[in-house]
C-alpha cells in the first residue's frame, strides 16, 4: 500500500463481504424452498427471499466496486484520495441504506419492480451516495496522474450512476416500463459494469504479472470497445417479446452474439499476461481469482448467454430455468469473482502483511467455482426439460416443475458447497494472520510499471 488513504477501501470490503454472506444465506434458503416449498411460506414468502437475494448481490458488488476504486485510484493517480472523510461518510450512508432496505423487505416495504424494489427514499439515497463517490474519485483522478485504467473505471462508474436514473421512471404502460427498466439492468451488467470489471482486471494484471503498462492499456481499450459496441445494441435481446418492434429480433440476435467477444478476449488477455509476465508474484490466490474470473465470466456471460440469445432459440427458452442458469454463472463469474480477486489482492496490503492463508483461499476458489458450475449445469438441464415439456408439448407450469424437481436438489447441494466455500474464503481473508506472514513481502510492496 503506497498511499495512506487507500485504507478507505477496508470498510467497503468488510461491508461487501457481510452482504455477500446475507446473499448466500438467503439464496440457500430460497434453494430449500424450491425442494421443500412449505418452508417459511407464511413468514418469508419466496418473493421476499428473492428480493433480498438479488438486492444483496447488487449492493455488495457495488460496494466492492466502490472499495476497489478507492483502493486502486490513489495508486494509479499517484496521490492521496481527495477526501477520505467523505468516503467514510459515504460508506456509512450506503451501508445504512442497504440494511434498512433488507429489514424493510422483511416487513413487505418495497416498490415491487424486479431488482429496483428499493423504496423511493433509498433510491434517492443511492443517488446521493453515488454523487459523493463520483465527486471524490473524479477530483482525485483530475488532480493526479491519468491512466487508461482510471479513465475507463471512472467512465464506468459515472455510467452506473447515470443509467440508475432510469429507475425513477415508471410509466403505466407495462411495455414502456420494461423497455426503460432494461436501461438500468442491461446497460449496467452488459455495459458499464464491464468497464469497471475490465479496468480492475487490467490493474490486477499490471500489478501481478509485471507486463508493461502500454500493452495492458491497449488490451483494455480493445476489450471495453468490444463490450460497448456489442452490448449497447445487444440490449435488443430483451426487446423480442415485450411489445416492442420485430426488428429487435435480428438486431438483438446479431449484436448479443458479438457480446461473447469481449469476454473471450478477457480470457486471452489474462492468460497471455500471466504467461508473458516475468513476475513471480507471491499472491497466487489473487492471481487464481483473476484468471478464474475471466474464464468463468466467459463461460457464464459469454457461452451461457449465447446459448439462449438468438431470437428463434429465445422464443422457447425465454423466462425458463435456462435464464436462471445463465444469470447465476454470469453474475458469479464476471462480477462476484472480480470482487473476490481484488479483495484477495488488496487485503494483505491493507493489513500490512505478506499474502496469507493462500492454500485456504485457493481451496475456497475451487469449492465456490465448482459449486457454481454444478449449479449452472443443474439449472440448464432443468431448463431444457422445462422448454420441451412446457413450450413444445404445452404441459402446464406446475406439472412441469414436478418433473424437474430432482434438478433442484442438485442445485441445493451445489449451493451448499458454494456456501461452505464462501465461509472458507471469509476466514482466509479476515482470519488471524500466521506469525510467519506478519511482515510484508518485499516483492509485493513494489508496484510494477
Amino acid at each position, binding site marked *: 500500500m503506497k498511499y495512506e488513504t487507500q485504507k478507505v477501501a477496508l470498510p467497503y470490503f468488510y461491508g461487501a463481504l457481510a452482504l455477500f454472506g446475507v446473499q448466500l444465506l438467503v439464496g440457500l434458503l430460497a434453494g430449500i424452498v424450491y425442494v421443500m416449498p412449505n418452508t417459511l411460506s407464511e413468514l418469508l414468502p419466496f*418473493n421476499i427471499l428473492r428480493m433480498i437475494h438479488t438486492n444483496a448481490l447488487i449492493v455488495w458488488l457495488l460496494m466492492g466496486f466502490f472499495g476497489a476504486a478507492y483502493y486502486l485510484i490513489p495508486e494509479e493517480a499517484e496521490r492521496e484520495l481527495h477526501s477520505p472523510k467523505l468516503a467514510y461518510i459515504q460508506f456509512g450512508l450506503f451501508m445504512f441504506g442497504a440494511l434498512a432496505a433488507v429489514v424493510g423487505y422483511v416487513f413487505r416495504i418495497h416498490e415491487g419492480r424486479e431488482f429496483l424494489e428499493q423504496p423511493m427514499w433509498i433510491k434517492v439515497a443511492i443517488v446521493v451516495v453515488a454523487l459523493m463517490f463520483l465527486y471524490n474519485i473524479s477530483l482525485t483522478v483530475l488532480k493526479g496522474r491519468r491512466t487508461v485504467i482510471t479513465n475507463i473505471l471512472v467512465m464506468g462508474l459515472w455510467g452506473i450512476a447515470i443509467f440508475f436514473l432510469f429507475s425513477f421512471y415508471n410509466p403505466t404502460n407495462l411495455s414502456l416500463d420494461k423497455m426503460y427498466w432494461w436501461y438500468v439492468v442491461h446497460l449496467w451488467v452488459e455495459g458499464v459494469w464491464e468497464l469497471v470489471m475490465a479496468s480492475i482486471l487490467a490493474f490486477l494484471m499490471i500489478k501481478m504479472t509485471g507486463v508493461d503498462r502500454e500493452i495492458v492499456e491497449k488490451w483494455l481499450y480493445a476489450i471495453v470497445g468490444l463490450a460497448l459496441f456489442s452490448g449497447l445494441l445487444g440490449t435488443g435481446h430483451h426487446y423480442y417479446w415485450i411489445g416492442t418492434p420485430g426488428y429487435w429480433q435480428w438486431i438483438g440476435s446479431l449484436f448479443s452474439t458479438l457480446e461473447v467477444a469481449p469476454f473471450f478476449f478477457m480470457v486471452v488477455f489474462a492468460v497471455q499476461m500471466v504467461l508473458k509476465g516475468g513476475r513471480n508474484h507471491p499472491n497466487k490466490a489473487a492471481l487464481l481469482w483473476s484468471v478464474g474470473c475471466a474464464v468463468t465470466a466467459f463461460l457464464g456471460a459469454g457461452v451461457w448467454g449465447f446459448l439462449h440469445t438468438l431470437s428463434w432459440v429465445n422464443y422457447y427458452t425465454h423466462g425458463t430455468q435456462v435464464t436462471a442458469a445463465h444469470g447465476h454463472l454470469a453474475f458469479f463469474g464476471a462480477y462476484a469473482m472480480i470482487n473476490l480477486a481484488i479483495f484477495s489482492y488488496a487485503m494483505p496490503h491493507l493489513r500490512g502483511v505478506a499474502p496469507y492463508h493462500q492454500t485456504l483461499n485457493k481451496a475456497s476458489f475451487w469449492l465456490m467455482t465448482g459449486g457454481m458450475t454444478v449449479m449452472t449445469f443443474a439449472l440448464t438441464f432443468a431448463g431444457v426439460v422445462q422448454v420441451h415439456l412446457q413450450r413444445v408439448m404445452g404441459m402446464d407450469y406446475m406439472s412441469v416443475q414436478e418433473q424437474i424437481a430432482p434438478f433442484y436438489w442438485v442445485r441445493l447441494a451445489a449451493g451448499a458447497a458454494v456456501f461452505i466455500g464462501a465461509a472458507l474464503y471469509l476466514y482466509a481473508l479476515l482470519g488471524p494472520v500466521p506469525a510467519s506472514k506478519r511482515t510484508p513481502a518485499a516483492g509485493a510492496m513494489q508496484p510494477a510499471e
Partner: protein
Amino acid sequence: MTERFTKAAARNIFYGGSLFFFAAFVSLTALSHIYVVETGTDHKGITEGVARGKHVWEKHSCINCHSIMGEGAYFAPELGNVWIRYGGDKDPDGARVALKGWMQAQPSGIEGRRQMPQFNLNEQELNDLADFFEWTSRVNTQNWPPKVSG
C-alpha cells in the same frame, strides 16, 4: 497485438465507436417508444383500473415469484397470458370470477406444493388486477409464448 495498432488508435476507436453505437441505440429505442404507444400496445386503453392494477402488481411484488412476458422470477407461472389461459378472451366475466376465486383461495396449504401468500386484496384491487392482466394479454408479443401454458 501488433505495433501498428497503437494505444492512441485503440482509444479513438473505443470513444468514437461507443458514441456511435450509443446514438444508434438511443435512436432505435426512440422509434420503439413510438411503436409501443401506437402499435405494440393498446396505449389509449390504459384505463384507471389498468393503471391501478399495475400498482397492485408492484405493491405485492408478484414479479419476484411469477414472470410477466417472460421477465421476473421463474418460481411461479407466467402471467402475461394468464387472461387467455383463464379463457378471458372468450368469456371475460368467467375469467374474472375465476381469477378472484383463485386469489382468495391462497395459500392452498398443500404439503409439498409451492405456496402463494394471501394478499387480502379487496374487491376493487381484485378487479384492477384483472383489468391489468386483460390489458397485458393484448400486448403484441410477436406470438410469444409458444403455448398457452406460458
